């Protein structure tokens, strides 16, 4: 547990199931995340880890069970979904920046249209965020004109601009060249120390060991093992986990 973690639950998942046609992706996930908690989710590809965090802001619909985010239950009620999306920021593997808008406008769009900020206020906040990300000088360029690491930091700033309570990271460094991974991880580390609740799907085990409060290991749609990083890496209980750790740490 880090110094920011509280005992207030902010995300409660109860027996969450999800199918893609006949394929059972999530087979009853039950877990609770506390305010300020940093959870790293890992597992082989196809294990359902990405699908799981995408159900939390309803980019994927779960088909059984309940998910409650900050006291609001996720249902088909559009108002609830929009409320939750304002509280949950998301960072994607492929950045998904809006290519037709400058980096600054990528960030100010949400605050102006959803939070109804004035253009001046939104730009002020956006520039402050870019400063925090260390890329204030890239504000007026287009996403295609900056490096991958810089794009991902713009994407993080875009999510933060909505002042979310929770940040979801879906393999944020997997599409990056090796020398750019650290600049994104630095920003995420800084964010973690600021007390943000974070759910991070990643293969960066060094980051998990250093920053996470809890590491969850997904395989075939279930949580095989979850533990504090020290226990998880040094004393894994399940054979499947041991295999995964030995394979990921080998290279």
């Amino acid at each position, binding site marked *: 547990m880090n110094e920011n973690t509280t005992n207030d639950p902010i995300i409660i998942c109860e027996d969450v199931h999800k199918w893609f046609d006949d394929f059972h992706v999530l087979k009853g996930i039950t877990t609770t995340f506390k305010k300020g908690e940093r959870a790293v989710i890992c597992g082989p590809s196809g294990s359902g880890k990405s699908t799981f965090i995408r159900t939390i*802001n309803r*980019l994927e619909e779960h088909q059984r069970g309940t998910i409650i985010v900050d006291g609001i239950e996720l249902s088909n009620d*559009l108002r609830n979904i*929009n409320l939750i*999306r*304002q509280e*949950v*920021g*998301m960072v*994607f593997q*492929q950045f*998904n*920046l*809006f*290519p*037709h808008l400058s980096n600054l406008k990528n960030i100010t*769009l*949400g605050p102006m*249209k*959803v939070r109804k900020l004035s253009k001046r206020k939104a730009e002020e906040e956006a520039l402050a965020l870019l400063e925090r990300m260390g890329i204030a000088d890239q504000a007026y360029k*287009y*996403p*295609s*004109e900056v490096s991958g690491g810089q794009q991902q930091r713009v994407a993080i700033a*875009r*999510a933060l601009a*909505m002042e979310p309570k929770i940040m979801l990271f879906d393999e944020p460094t997997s599409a990056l060249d090796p020398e750019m991974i650290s600049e994104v991880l630095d920003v995420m580390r800084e964010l973690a120390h600021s007390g943000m609740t974070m759910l991070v799907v990643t293969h960066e085990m060094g980051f998990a060991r250093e920053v996470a409060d809890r590491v969850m290991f997904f395989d075939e749609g279930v949580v095989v093992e979850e533990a504090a990083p020290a226990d998880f890496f040094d004393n894994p209980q399940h054979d499947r986990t041991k295999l995964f750790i030995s394979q990921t740490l080998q290279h």
Partner: protein
Amino acid sequence: MEEQVDIQQIKPPTYAKGPVGWLRENLFSPWYNAILTCVALLFLYFVFKGLLTWAFTEAEWNVIPANLQLFAIGPYPRDQVYRIWICLYILSVLLGLSAGVWRGIVQRWTIVVGSILLVFLVIPFEIVQREDSHLVSIEFRFNLIWLIFESRRWLLGDVALLIGAFFLGQRITRLRPWILGGWVLSFPIIMFVLHGFGENAVQTSMWGGLLLTLILAVFGIVVSFPLGVFLALCRQSKLPAIKWVSTFYIETVRGVPLITILFMGSVLIPIFIPYFTIDQVLRMMVAITLFSAAYMAENVRGGLQAIPRGQHEAAQAVGLNYVQSMMFIVLPQALRSVIPAIVGQFIALFKDTSLVYIIGLIDLFGVAKSIITNPVWLGRHVEVYIFIALIYFSFCYAMSKASQEIEADLGVGKH
């Protein structure tokens, strides 16, 4: 160290320069290209020799200046022409203001329009009128000169307004929303001014020439575009009823030739709805628009499908609702990627307006037809067709050119 210096001193390889070098490289480089070049030159020589000889010796171009007003407005009453000038004044003021306020692409095109007007201001149409056109009566020619002089007076005012509005727009940039509103309102106002009311009303059956062509085309383009976007979004809808209705409409309209739709508008609607009459020109405007919207919808749908799913997801994750994510994220990207197809549709629509000639409207093509059948201008059909072809070409080429500039402005392919 020496090697490094050497590397920096290496010059790029040189290629043959100058016009001779260019010719050798591009036209005569291997021997078979030289042969192809010669054959092509020979072909061009014969084609152009025939064309130019005809154009400068046999062709009698006086049919054009003598009927200029007919080409422009068809049978619109000559004593009511001032109304058309009022409409042009409204458009010139709006164009001038827009150019002053927005600069960039609008300004460049306003300068083009202004230059064309200036050219018209100084071209002496009267001199082109040959002495040997003895078939034209003295009285008619006098009238013609008088009309041309009068046109110049109005044209002078038009150019002055355009320039004046431009400088006004440069001063007062706050006018933006008002100018946009002005453009929206301009169409109904112009229709009203052209038609008028009471005993001076000019029925739409008297509208014609380029005027009618432009009314049909502009209405078709301006209305079919948003309608097409709407239909495309409906066809992508998750709600089956909306999706099916939209798909049914698009497929039905695309499966029918425009000419049948025009005939339906012209002949069938008065039979089906005999209780009141809808104006013929209005029916054609609607028919052309509905036809074009179906094609537009498919063009736009192509653009929508090219937008990666991640863009929708990112827009949702930021908290944008459906309308916002369409307006600010998806449509701007989708539309700019299909600008060539959309403008292609605009161009097709512009040319297709000539089909209204078949149901009895006297658009630019109809005017051409009526001039040719006039015994006074017997045998002058090639000149007339070439002239209207040039008019159609100038408008279509302008649209094509403008679309390229808009693409460059929006950075298509760059970001």
